[in-house]
């Protein structure tokens, strides 16, 4: 089989997937209190529609979408809203957060309604109805970007999407949630694929899986031929980070390059994460909104594995109940929301699981090595490995000098962190580039205001 990959750059960080690889997806118990952030997606934050002391049950809408680019937020539990306050989320933003006291028994009772599979004939259901189901379930991209799904499925009318790529690359080290989901829910995911096929009218479906997951590749190939889905094929990809980046995956599978500043549908491609597709399946066949998700808890914990976690569960509860706590609390140096390459370190374990939480990785003092930024020795490694063909070292220097004119390229950065990863003098290149984006925007706004002045 021909193994393809993206053209430019790329790195091979140690995978460290062995901790949680192949561990069955387990449920984490419902905690006594959950806190639901109203901004779990890109776009306008949801508006709270419940009040303090109001009774809510599983699946009730807590936050209403505010405009088109926004998503619903559902209650994952039954209980009483205790308070609505400003609180820091796992993404580091201060957002209005609902704290709900959970009625554990009632939650279990109410959750049963999502265990009944509905008979849905995809061919008979109209495109609009399917899209409505997805929108009502509040589905957002679960790979981490958290872009509302229904927006992604409604490209501008002049853009024709012909290829759907299912993103099962999971190139982030440590994470195995997508892998395990692909192994356990193969048929369900393929049904989800059919829903998307119908909604966005794609001709060809590619399932992109890196070759470090041979069992998933094999399983999908078998099930595709067994279920007889048309125009659907598995693309085995060479293992390389950041293969799971949208633009890199499109390049690896179709050879198309998304032009700078454009979106995947400009080249006629739609990329969806495996977890998202599974959520679509659940929404269509069970009427279930996004009230839980599959997440890897791994690293420096006693029992790493893959877990189905209710939204709003505190990290501390998830780590204690699911993963059996840290191996040695004193040695935990960093807890990351997401993968170690692109995730965000959190400051306290009281933050809660959100729609975009693809992993919780605890790093010990052994894995987490801090070193001061040194001077650039101009080795050019960051340029060699940049998957977007940028020159990270130049962008970082221009950011330090606040050189807005030179920073246009920074807007193309996908923030994969490869440059910081390889830098021999520990320069925080990707961080500088992120700042550079802000510098560029400020500079651009200033330029424009001067222009309009004259």
């Amino acid at each position: 089989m021909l193994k393809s990959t993206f053209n430019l750059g790329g790195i091979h960080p140690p995978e460290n997937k062995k901790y949680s690889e192949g561990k069955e997806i387990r449920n984490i118990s419902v905690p006594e209190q959950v806190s639901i952030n109203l901004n779990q997606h890109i776009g306008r934050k949801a508006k709270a529609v419940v009040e303090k002391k109001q009774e809510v049950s599983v699946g009730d809408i807590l936050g209403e979408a505010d405009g088109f680019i926004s998503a619903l937020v559902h209650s994952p539990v039954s209980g009483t809203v205790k308070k609505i306050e400003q609180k820091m989320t796992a993404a580091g933003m201060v957002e209005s957060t609902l704290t709900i006291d959970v009625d554990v028994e009632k939650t279990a009772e109410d959750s049963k309604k999502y265990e009944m599979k509905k008979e849905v004939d995809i061919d008979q259901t109209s495109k609009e109805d399917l899209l409505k189901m997805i929108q009502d379930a509040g589905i957002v991209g679960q790979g981490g970007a958290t872009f509302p799904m229904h927006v992604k499925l409604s490209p501008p009318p002049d853009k024709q999407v012909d290829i759907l790529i299912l993103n099962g690359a999971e190139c982030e080290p440590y994470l195995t949630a997508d892998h395990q989901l692909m192994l356990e829910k193969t048929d369900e995911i393929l049904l989800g694929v059919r829903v998307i096929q119908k909604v966005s009218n794609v001709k060809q479906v590619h399932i992109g899986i890196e070759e470090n997951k041979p069992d998933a590749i094999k399983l999908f190939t078998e099930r595709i031929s067994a279920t007889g889905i048309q125009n659907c094929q598995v693309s085995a990809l060479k293992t390389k980070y950041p293969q799971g980046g949208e633009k890199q995956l499109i390049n690896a599978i179709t050879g198309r390059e998304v032009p700078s500043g454009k979106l995947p549908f400009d080249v006629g491609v739609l990329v969806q994460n495996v977890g998202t597709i599974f959520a679509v399946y659940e929404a269509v066949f069970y009427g279930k909104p996004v009230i839980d998700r599959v997440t890897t808890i791994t690293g420096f914990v006693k029992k790493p594995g893959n877990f189905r976690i209710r939204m709003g569960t505190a990290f501390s509860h998830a780590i204690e109940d699911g993963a059996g706590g840290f191996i040695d609390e004193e040695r935990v140096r960093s807890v990351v929301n997401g993968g170690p390459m692109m995730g965000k370190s959190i400051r306290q374990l009281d933050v809660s699981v959100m729609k975009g939480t693809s992993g919780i990785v605890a790093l010990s003092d052994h894995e987490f090595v801090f070193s001061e930024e040194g001077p650039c020795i101009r080795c050019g490694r960051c340029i060699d490995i940049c998957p977007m063909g940028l020159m990270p070292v130049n962008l970082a220097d221009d950011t330090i000098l606040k050189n807005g004119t030179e920073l246009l390229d920074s807007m193309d950065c996908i923030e994969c962190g490869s440059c910081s990863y390889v830098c021999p003098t520990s320069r925080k290149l990707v961080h500088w580039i992120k700042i550079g984006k802000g510098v560029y925007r400020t500079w651009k706004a200033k330029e424009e205001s001067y222009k309009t002045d004259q």
Partner: protein
Amino acid sequence: MRELILTSAPHVRSGSQLKNIMYDVALALLPATVWSVYKFGMPALNVILFALASGLAFEALSLYMQRKKNILSITFDGSAIVTALLLALNLPSSSPAWLVITGSFVAIVIAKHTFGGLGYNIFNPALVARVFLLISFPVQMTKWLAPGSFGVDAETIATPLDLIKTEGAAGIEKITSDYTTLDFFLGNTGGSMGEVSAAMLLLGALYLMVRKVITWEVPITILASLFAFTGIFYLVNDAEYASPVLHLLSGGAILGAFFMATDMVTSPMTRKGMIIFGVSIGIITGLIRLFGGYPEGISFAIIIMNAVVPIIDKYTRVKKFGT
């Protein structure tokens, strides 16, 4: 539980650190260093030890004067050791101590720290020192001892490139009758301590390539363009001009191509730039060797090209994804 650390992603980092790179280079120079001691004896060892000691001392002193923190760890980050070692290998084994120490001073203090320290120097420090010494103290810098003869009755000989420069066609004849290609390869000719043995240098270079410390672009293009440039003249007139193989194996061509021109700080960052850089060095070296006033030109060629690296970097941008 202790306080959690907050940093920007990525939270894991590759093992390839500055220290590893620098010590890899030092390790790669080891075969040539050992060979030079074997060939030139105790004086060679003295030169190397003097260079290392004075290099590290000047480094620590410069850092102290800049009021840097953790002076010790920066001093031993390997870059000063590599510079000092390269300087030693670029000197004749007969160098007196004061010459070595002057060289270290020029390399570390003037060429490196007055430009801002590691990463900011425009010119390769070891080469600046070598060129400085060559111009200032030509007598001491060209007193080559014959390999294998040391002690009081050590005899001095001319390097092959010296012979070609001073005696022309007669010199070439003399070289071809005196030495076989194998002599050049193993280092049985006269010259700087480190540059005589192509075999030992290539061994180290191979190690660096395997460890991915250096890439092929710079050294291969230097050697190829030097080979091509001298080859053309050899084809035209093989009595007046020495063979390209001789040019590759004699003088500092291999040492310069693999260890000096590849210095990350002073070479271009992109692959395209490296090729331009390498080809230019090869041609300038050829020009100086065949038509210039000095028998050997690679040091000058590298330093000249070091100066234009910013321009090369500016005009050799990589292709951006999606353009």
